[in-house]
C-alpha cells in the first residue's frame, strides 16, 4: 500500500537543489518521506526549500558563516517527519474527500441506468448491489487516487501575472485538451443516442427511458466539458473579466459582495468540471447578480482568483 502511495522517482529533481550539500541532503530526505508522484511532492519540497534559502540568507546577512547559517535554517524548519506526516495526512484527506462522493455518485448513476432498463420489479437486486459496490470502489478509488497522488497542480508563472495586481486564469494545456476531447466524445454519444430515439443507428432498439436518460447525461457532460474548456478569467485594473459559453462578463472589484462554494448537489446538476464558486455582486443598476467561476488545481491561478475575490468581498464589507 505504501509503495502505491509513495511512487518513488528515479532521483531527486535537480531544480530542487540549493547548492548547499547540508540543505540538499535534508530536502532529499524530506522528498523520500513524502507520498505521491514527483509533481505532488514538489510543492512541499519547494516550500521547504525556499524557507531554508531565505532563512539561510538572513543568517548570512547577519554575519554568520555558511555552516552556522545552514544549521540555523534547518533548526527553524523543524523535524522532517512532522512535515512529511502532515503531507501524508493532507493527501489522505484529499483522497477521502474525492473518492467517497465520486464513487457513490457514479455507482448511483449506473444503478439508475440499470433500473431504467429492467424496471424496479424485474431487477436482480443481489447482482445490482454487487455491481454498485464494484462501481463505487473502482471509480471512487481510481479518481481519488488520481487527484490525491498523481495529478499535477498548475504552477503560475510570471507570464500569467504581468503585474502585482493583474493575473490571468487559464487551464493547463493538458487539462484544456482533455476538456475539448471529452466534450467531443460526450457530444458524439449524445448524437448517437438522439439518433437512436429517432429510430436510427445502433441504439435504435434500446428502451426509450434508458436511451433518453443516457442522452440527457451525455448532453449534460458535453456541455459541462465545453463550458470548462471555454472558461477563462483575468484580473486587471481592479476588474474581473470572466469568459464562458455566453461571452464575457465584467465584474468590478468594488461590486463584489461575497463568494460561496456551489453546493455538491447543485454542482452535479449544473454543467461544469471540477469545483466551482458563486461570485455575488451588484451591477450598475444595483441588482444582485451571481456568476459561477471554476476553481480547480488544474487552473493556473485558480486559487489566486478565489483569494482575490474573498479579499474584494471583505474589503467591500468593511467599506
Amino acid at each position, binding site marked *: 500500500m505504501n509503495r502505491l502511495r509513495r511512487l518513488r522517482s528515479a532521483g531527486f529533481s535537480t531544480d530542487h537543489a540549493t547548492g548547499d550539500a547540508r540543505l540538499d541532503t535534508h530536502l532529499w530526505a524530506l522528498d523520500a518521506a513524502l507520498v505521491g508522484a514527483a509533481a505532488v511532492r514538489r510543492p512541499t519540497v519547494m516550500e521547504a526549500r525556499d524557507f531554508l534559502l531565505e532563512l539561510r540568507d538572513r543568517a548570512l546577512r547577519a554575519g554568520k558563516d555558511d555552516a552556522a547559517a545552514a544549521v540555523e535554517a534547518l533548526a527553524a524548519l523543524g523535524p522532517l517527519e512532522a512535515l512529511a506526516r*502532515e503531507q501524508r*495526512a493532507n493527501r489522505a484527506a484529499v483522497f477521502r474527500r474525492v473518492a467517497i462522493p465520486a464513487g457513490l455518485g457514479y455507482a448511483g448513476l449506473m444503478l439508475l441506468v440499470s433500473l431504467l432498463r429492467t424496471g424496479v420489479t424485474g431487477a436482480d437486486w443481489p447482482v445490482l448491489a454487487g455491481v454498485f459496490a464494484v462501481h463505487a470502489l473502482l471509480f471512487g478509488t481510481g479518481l481519488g487516487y488520481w487527484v490525491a497522488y498523481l495529478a499535477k497542480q498548475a504552477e503560475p508563472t510570471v507570464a500569467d501575472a504581468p503585474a502585482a495586481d493583474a493575473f490571468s486564469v487559464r487551464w493547463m494545456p493538458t487539462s484544456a485538451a482533455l476538456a475539448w476531447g471529452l466534450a467531443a466524445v460526450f457530444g458524439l454519444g449524445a448524437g448517437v443516442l438522439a439518433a437512436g430515439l429517432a429510430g436510427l443507428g445502433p441504439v435504435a432498439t434500446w428502451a426509450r427511458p434508458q436511451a433518453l436518460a443516457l442522452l440527457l447525461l451525455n448532453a449534460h457532460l458535453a456541455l459541462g466539458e465545453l463550458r470548462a474548456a471555454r472558461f477563462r478569467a483575468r484580473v486587471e485594473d481592479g476588474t474581473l473579466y470572466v469568459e464562458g459559453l455566453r461571452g464575457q462578463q465584467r465584474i468590478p472589484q468594488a461590486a463584489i459582495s461575497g463568494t460561496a462554494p456551489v453546493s455538491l448537489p447543485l454542482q452535479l446538476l449544473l454543467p461544469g468540471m471540477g469545483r466551482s464558486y458563486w461570485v455575488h455582486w451588484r451591477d450598475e443598476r444595483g441588482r444582485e447578480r451571481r456568476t459561477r467561476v471554476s476553481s480547480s488545481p488544474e487552473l493556473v491561478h485558480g*486559487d489566486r482568483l478565489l483569494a482575490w475575490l474573498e479579499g474584494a468581498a471583505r474589503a467591500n464589507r468593511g467599506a
Partner: protein
Amino acid sequence: MLHVLRAGPNYGFGIRERLDQALGADAGLVKEATLYPLLHRLERNGLLASHHEPGERGSPRKYYRLTPEGDAFFERRVAEWGRVAALLQRTVLK
C-alpha cells in the same frame, strides 16, 4: 499565527518573520511547534486557505490566508484565553 494572517495573506518565511518581530525573545517557541506542519494542519481543518503566486526564486510561492472559520476560531480562542488570564489575575497572580 492566526493573528499574523489576520493582517493579510502571507507565505511561510514572511509569517516566520512577523512572528519573530511579534514574539521578540520568545521567537524560539515557534521552532518547537514547527511552522509548516501547523500551517498545513490548519489548512486541512479549514481554518486557513492557500493560493500560489509566482515567487522571486522561480518556484511559485504558497500564500496562506485566514478563512471566515479561522477568523471565528481565533476570536473564540482569544475570548477563552482572556477569561483564563483574568481569572489568574484575580486569583493566583493577585
